[in-house]
């Protein structure tokens, strides 16, 4: 019951997907290579069906569809693990070549029907679908273009279900491709209009985490993918283990997203330490609570203090006192009350799960919906603007049938979401794009009454 179908799209999407399945299969006692259960606790099986399909012989498969416009990357996954169903690999014959237009219009469109057919088969085999989880980057052609196309189809065919995106965002420090800003820009309309929850995984922040926190001299994608997988494991803890708040995508959506357009969430994780460093850490709950509010522990290169938190959640894992956790979280909010909007009361949630991640005794995962996300959007907008002003590299896109107007439309959409977040920090005319109303500063009671109906109304209207 309450199952999720995963789609991992493009090279980056499949890389972080593979890391994710590594991590959560281990947490549920399922061997990554063979798919067989070898765990010790009934808790590991109680909600394993949220992400895994089971056979009669206690063999488990990841409920995921592995998608790329070229076959080589996902063929490697097929060879490395029996966790993936062979029929759930969907490969095209030609790479999207880091071009959104080829992902959306040509090479990606060629495999869309197969993707949707595989998705339909998974959807019809589950008991009660709660939504889709899409893993992709927005810097590459497949992860940006094909994902936008898939999202449009999912919203049309499964309008009752939630789309949750885990989006890898390009960084100039790790960029190997000059047109990444264009792909990221063109992805924006689909993420703003069709996603319900978008977790932003910023390569800029991940690069800094590897260099600063972990002191890795030559950080590669394998380290980054592992950090991402740990964080995704934390975010999905409440979906996979019993008894805690936010035990469903829709509840996360209802709690974290005050206005439908403001659904870009920033994850964080603590502790971000190497095995060596862990020896010097006391590993107290107090440390975890402090760390998850450090900008250094966020997977997005932003400063929380430069904006206001609309909503936040802390997910704690391991043996700890629930009373202590709540007191510390309340304490952080009260001490930093100026960094929270005042028109959404009780806008911080806490969940605790006894089962710690592999290799750690305690951990905490942060999810924040903050107006500081503007910083990230502005970076993407600026990067694309400087190239677009001179029409550099535009012919790769217009040559595939796109028009310049589509770039301008996407820039307007990106600017609009920046403005929406900016105005919600001020507490007036919040959630622009809604039909007026919205929360107002001052009266907490008023804010509570107005915010919730707004969210529901917007959902109905959509």
């Amino acid at each position, binding site marked *: *019951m*309450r199952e999720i179908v995963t789609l991992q799209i493009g090279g980056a999407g499949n890389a972080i997907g593979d890391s994710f399945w590594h991590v959560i299969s281990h947490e549920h006692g399922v061997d990554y290579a063979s798919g067989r259960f070898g765990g010790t606790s009934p808790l590991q099986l109680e909600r394993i069906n949220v992400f895994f399909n089971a056979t009669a012989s206690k063999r488990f498969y990841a409920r995921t569809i592995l998608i790329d416009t070229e076959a080589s990357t996902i063929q490697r996954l097929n060879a490395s693990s029996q966790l993936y169903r062979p029929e759930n690999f969907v490969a095209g014959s030609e790479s999207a070549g880091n071009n959104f237009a080829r992902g959306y219009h040509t090479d990606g469109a060629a495999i869309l029907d197969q993707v949707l057919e595989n998705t339909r088969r998974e959807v019809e085999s589950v*008991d*009660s*679908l*709660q939504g889709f989880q899409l893993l992709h980057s927005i810097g590459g052609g497949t992860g940006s273009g094909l994902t936008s196309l898939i999202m449009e189809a999912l919203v*049309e*065919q*499964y*309008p*009752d*279900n939630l789309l949750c995106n885990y989006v890898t965002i390009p960084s100039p420090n790790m960029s190997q491709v000059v047109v990444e800003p264009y792909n990221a820009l063109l992805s924006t309309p689909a993420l703003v209009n069709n996603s319900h929850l978008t977790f932003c995984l910023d390569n800029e922040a991940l690069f800094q985490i590897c260099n600063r926190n972990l002191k890795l001299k030559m950080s590669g994608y394998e380290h980054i993918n592992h950090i991402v997988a740990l964080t995704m494991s934390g975010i999905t803890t409440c979906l996979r283990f019993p*008894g*805690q*708040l*936010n*035990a*469903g995508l*829709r*509840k996360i959506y*209802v709690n974290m997203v005050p206005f439908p357009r403001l659904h870009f969430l920033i994850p964080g994780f603590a502790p971000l330490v190497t095995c060596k460093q862990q020896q010097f850490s006391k590993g107290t709950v107090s440390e975890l609570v402090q760390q998850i509010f450090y900008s250094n522990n966020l997977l997005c290169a932003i400063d929380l203090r430069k904006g206001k938190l609309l909503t936040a959640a802390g997910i704690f894992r391991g043996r700890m006192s*629930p*009373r202590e956790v*709540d007191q510390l979280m309340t304490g952080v909010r009260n001490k930093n009350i100026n960094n929270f909007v005042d028109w959404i009361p009780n806008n911080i949630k806490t969940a605790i799960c006894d089962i710690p991640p592999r290799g750690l005794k305690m951990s905490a995962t942060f999810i924040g919906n903050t107006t500081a996300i503007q910083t990230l959007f502005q970076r993407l907008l600026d990067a694309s603007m400087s190239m677009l002003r001179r029409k550099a590299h535009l012919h790769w896109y217009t040559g595939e049938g796109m028009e310049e107007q589509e770039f301008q439309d996407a820039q307007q959409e990106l600017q609009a979401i920046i403005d929406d977040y900016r105005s919600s920090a001020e507490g007036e005319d919040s959630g622009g794009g809604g039909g007026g109303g919205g929360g107002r500063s001052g009266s907490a009671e008023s804010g509570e009454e107005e915010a919730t109906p707004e969210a*529901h109304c917007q959902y*109905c209207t959509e």
Partner: protein
Amino acid sequence: MTDPRIRQLVIKSGVVRRLTREKYCYAKEVLTEQARLEKLRGDGADDHVLRKQEEVIQECIMMVPDSKRRLQKEYEVLEKYLADEQDLIETDSYKKAAEILKDAKAELET
């Protein structure tokens, strides 16, 4: 599916079927979490843990009317669609959709 009307019928009936399941699951979840609270109370759990479990139950309860409202809306959409497309009445998709509508109506009445 060559007829776009049948395609829309399959989409709409799929939505209603899933929302029916969802509403049922949320209602059942409330009972599950209430049973968990009783067990925690019987085991002499800390007051804080009990309050937390009350919070969990309130969240579950909150989801039920939301789910019901969404189901009601889609039920009406499908009902109207079936009434408008009577000439499809002999198709498998239409019959399946009518069955789904009946199940949804039963769930809405609980």
